[in-house]
């Protein structure tokens, strides 16, 4: 029984990573109507960045996050300008394959530069745990959980109470109306994409202490994030966060009770079911971005 509680808690905590990845994805999908297939590769790049900051200059991963976030904001702005903006007025398949192309390039760039080896760092606190009622709570996982929740809350306030945030929501609701109200939609798109990418960057830094990095690491995370985004309802940040924690839970539970290899099949099946019966997601209304 204790083990079960332990598994449940560590699953929910790990959901924080999925939350950080899927918040960005749902924001980009909801506002720009774009599926970013390279989203997982941004996570991979963030992991490598954190890894090398640690290996070369002995920077703590959590400190590295302070550098990674603005760096990834710029990275996001740049890739939006070069790759995404030219696809916006073209048929939908163009952006799908441009982002897939970017993901192929980033994956193989990593393979070429860093080889396919699994790399991980060792930080003293990776194994730290708090003991509450006989349950061990792993310190890095707790950090992931808390940051995930804080980011979601922060983003909620940003979207509702700042001018830029309101502009983003207005653009998501009706691009043309927003344009007529004098909102610079192009700029909104650029900022939205950059926010999404910098959240993934943050996720990468927080994940590094307890995970390994390799060129294709992003793929499994982006698949989970797709599931979370759809389950949560397109553009719903709250939905994506709750779905992320649910997936973290389902994943560890099914890995514990059933074969770990089946867990993916399980939540993909759940995913297709949700799509079919609740196309607007478990928590979604028809509105985008809230």
């Amino acid at each position, binding site marked *: 029984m204790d083990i079960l509680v332990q598994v449940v808690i560590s699953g929910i905590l790990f959901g924080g990573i999925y939350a950080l990845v899927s918040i960005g994805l749902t924001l980009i*999908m909801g506002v720009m*109507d774009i*599926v970013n297939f390279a989203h997982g590769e941004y996570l991979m790049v963030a992991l490598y960045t954190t890894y090398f900051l640690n290996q070369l200059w002995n920077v703590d991963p959590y400190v590295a996050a302070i550098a990674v976030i603005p760096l990834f904001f710029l990275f996001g702005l740049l890739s939006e300008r070069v*790759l995404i903006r*030219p*696809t916006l007025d*073209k*048929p*939908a*398949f*163009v952006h*799908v*394959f*441009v982002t*897939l*192309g*970017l993901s*192929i*390039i980033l*994956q*193989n*760039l*990593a*393979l*070429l530069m860093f*080889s*396919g080896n699994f790399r991980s760092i060792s930080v003293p606190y990776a194994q730290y745990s708090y003991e509450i009622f006989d349950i061990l709570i792993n310190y890095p996982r707790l950090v992931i959980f808390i940051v995930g929740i804080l980011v979601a809350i922060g983003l909620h306030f940003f979207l509702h109470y700042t001018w830029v945030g309101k502009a983003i929501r207005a653009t998501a609701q009706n691009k043309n109306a927003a344009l007529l109200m004098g909102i610079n939609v192009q700029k909104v798109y650029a900022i939205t994409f950059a926010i999404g990418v910098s959240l993934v960057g943050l996720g990468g830094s927080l994940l590094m202490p307890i995970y390994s990095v390799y*060129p294709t690491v992003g*793929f499994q995370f982006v*698949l989970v994030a*797709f*599931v979370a985004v*759809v389950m949560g309802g397109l553009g719903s940040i709250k939905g994506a966060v709750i779905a992320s924690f649910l997936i973290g839970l389902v994943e560890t539970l099914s890995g514990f009770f059933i*074969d770990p*290899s*089946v867990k*993916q*099949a399980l939540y*993909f*099946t759940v*995913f*297709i079911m949700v*799509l*079919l019966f609740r*196309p607007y997601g478990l928590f979604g209304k028809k509105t985008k971005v809230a």
Partner: protein
Amino acid sequence: MKLDKGKIINSWPFVIAILGILAISKIENQYYLGMIFNTLLWVAIAGSWQIVGGYAGEFSLGHAAFFGIGAYTSTLLYIHFSVSPWIGMFIGAAFAGIIGFLLSWTCFRLRGHFFTLATLAFGQVVLIIATSWRSLTSGSEGLLLPIKMGFWQMSFESKHAYVYLVLIYAISVILFTYVMERRRLGYYLIAYRENDEAARSLGVNTFRARLTASTISAFFTAIGGTIYAQYTFFIEPESVLPVTLSIQAPLVSIVGGLGTPFGPLFGAVLILPLSQFLRGIFGSSFNGLHLIIYGLILIVVLLLMPSGLGPVILKGWRKITGAQVKKINASG
């Protein structure tokens, strides 16, 4: 007389094609034969994909599932029940068709991105099932086909036989697409792609048209799986069900020109020899470099020519031949 000359010029592509087919029997280099096999296989896979992906604009990213279902069905029937792959091929294709029908029947209510994501998830589910159902598929260890040569076993000593086999497959797919485009089904699909509401208000049952198309698409894709299994004599989940296959099928169609019967042909001829060539140069020394170049070419083509290279080449070709026709007319 004038007409005849024009006809001769317009039939050049066919003359070249026939000469090319005859030339295959003269090629002894195994490397080139392998390249031709691969290219033609991808003409057919991309062609099968675009029956629903190109004409109806339903962007599936799960077609590897059908390819794998074809490969596994015929191979398992062959290994366990000694069913000839020729029969197994059609059983597998029919099975894939049924699965494709069920998948589409449930997922076609999803529009745009959601359909793509659902098919991507479906492809992964099939991959995971094939990997974890070890008693049936022996998991990632893969299945070794019995090496027993003979026509009935669809196993041949020479690569030429496989090249001709896959050639027939590719021609069937192109021919089907060519005919479909000129029949009711093709018009219905294009009508759906361009404007669903308008099509339905004219009484077109676009749902049924898309179901038909995706069933046929899955059917044809699965045939490729069997041919591939017979060619390599070994299948594993990562070789017949990878997500890269699901990505490359639309990719080849897009580069060649979406929604045209010959698009996949252009796409495959442009992409596959190139990627094999790049892999040959950089594969061993700079692991990954060939895929980086591949990705760059993909992005450049998409951003500069989203309708694909096929139409551009065709336009160029017509310009050349058109000019020649005029010259002949002037001199005659």
